[in-house]
């Protein structure tokens, strides 16, 4: 029967191994994408599911690392600004994306709406998470 690992030293070592495997996997994924790009063209490489896996892993990694960035953020004493500013900024970015989707060559109203909504949701989610982390750090600092 496999026993659950309790030893903190082994857990740390396991984490180091996982990060090494992640590095190897990432290099492998990049090699596949580059190979596809060279042999089948850039469109084939970008429509490959491996490319989406790569993008999603990088987005998740960046989001997780956001908390590290906030921890090293020096201006922790300052209270984060009001939340509605973030919503307004996300609306502006969504509008810009939407207009680009509508007016760029090959664009349509439905395309603009989809691109705009995706831009709005993505920016709002990321900025809200950043705002939440900053506010949490500020509240912890106040205590």
């Amino acid at each position, binding site marked *: 029967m496999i026993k659950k690992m*309790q*030893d*903190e*030293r*082994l857990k740390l070592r396991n984490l180091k191994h996982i990060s090494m495997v992640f590095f190897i996997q990432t290099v492998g994924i990049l090699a596949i994408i580059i190979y596809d790009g060279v042999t089948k063209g850039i469109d084939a490489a970008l429509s490959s599911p491996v490319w989406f896996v790569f993008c999603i892993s990088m987005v998740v990694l960046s989001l997780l690392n956001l908390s590290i960035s906030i921890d090293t953020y020096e201006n922790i004493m300052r209270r984060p600004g009001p939340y509605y500013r973030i919503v307004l900024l996300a609306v502006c970015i969504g509008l810009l994306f939407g207009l680009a989707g509508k007016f760029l060559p090959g664009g349509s109203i439905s395309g603009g709406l989809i691109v705009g909504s995706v831009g709005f949701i993505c920016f709002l989610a990321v900025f809200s998470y950043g705002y939440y982390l900053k506010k949490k750090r500020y509240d912890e600092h106040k205590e």
Partner: protein
Amino acid sequence: MKNKVKFARLQAELTQQQLAEKTGVTRQTISLIEKGKYNPTLNLCLEICYATGRSLDEIFWIPREGEE
């Protein structure tokens, strides 16, 4: 990091294996801690103190160089 884990373990009449079982780690980890080759977390330090009946101060305190 230097420490007095080996001394405290011998005083408590425990083997490395027994201390490892009491603290929930492997014998190798205890061995590395005694040799100063692995820095345990505060939680593990406390577990070692509970198992040997010593305080953190007695086992892990090291005066700064030049201070005694």
